[in-house]
């Protein structure tokens, strides 16, 4: 199992990359910066599983919290509104 590189509360950026294949990182969040809310454990990499491989070593999975206003500059709701998304470690970089 891969070691978790980031801690709860740490700022992370989702990589702005567009590889082909089965990716569980939504397009709309790529390139955005958020804060680690919790570490969910480690799970086989879905991009590998989709290719009928074993997905090992398991990838640490995080729940990352983003401010809506950071993701959608024209967001109409209050500043405090947030979204939380599960992101695998290999899609994150330090921010």
């Amino acid at each position, binding site marked *: 199992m891969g070691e978790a590189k980031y801690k709860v509360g740490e700022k992370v950026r989702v990589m702005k990359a567009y590889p082909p294949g089965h990716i569980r990182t939504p397009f709309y969040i790529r390139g955005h910066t958020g804060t680690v809310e919790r570490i969910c454990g480690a799970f086989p990499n879905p991009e590998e599983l989709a290719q009928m491989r074993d997905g090992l070593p398991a990838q640490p999975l995080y729940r990352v919290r983003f401010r809506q206003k950071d993701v959608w500059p024209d967001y109409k*709701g209050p500043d405090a*509104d947030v979204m939380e998304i599960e992101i695998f470690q290999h899609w994150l970089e330090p921010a």
Partner: protein
Amino acid sequence: MAKPELGKYQPLSYFQLMEVSLRELLVEKGLLTEEQIRREVEDMRGRTPERGAKVVARAWTDDAFKKRLLENGTKACEELGLDVPALKLVVVENTPQVHNVIVCTLCSCYPRMLLGIPPDWYKSRAYRSRMVREPREVLKEFGLVIPPDIQVRVHDSTADMRYLVLPMRPEGTGGWSEERLAALVTRDSMIGVSAPKSPGKNA
């Protein structure tokens, strides 16, 4: 288009045909039996939001259970005899300051073991794309207006976790039994698009 006449032969649709072909192949090759498939379908149909409601009602009446539920949803459900295999359950609590709502923008991940089969709107493109983009407007269309001083927290279920909203216990239910409380907990309130039923009318 003419309405299909009930009781008359209808040709199979593309996906029905694919399902029948795959099922017959699996049986023919001895990988599954017809009885196993029937039982699995029956079990799947037997899972209803009442399971989730039981979890919520227990959390409303037992603070220690609630604490365990928020820490580790899967383990806490096992205590109630609810086996949730292949499902890491994250329970998110609504409070006077925070309103939670669940969506899966990539497909339609849903806590089926606790809520059964998802409603069609949950799988619709409109819900999936709009709930992350303009949650307050979408909630308003469900009849739920969230005041601006309450934070809206949208959970996009993208990988291995599944989510359940723990709604706020309705006022005026002091001293109620778990069973009575469970009857107020609706499927939609556990997805986060509505509040539980109010105790007034059918108490």
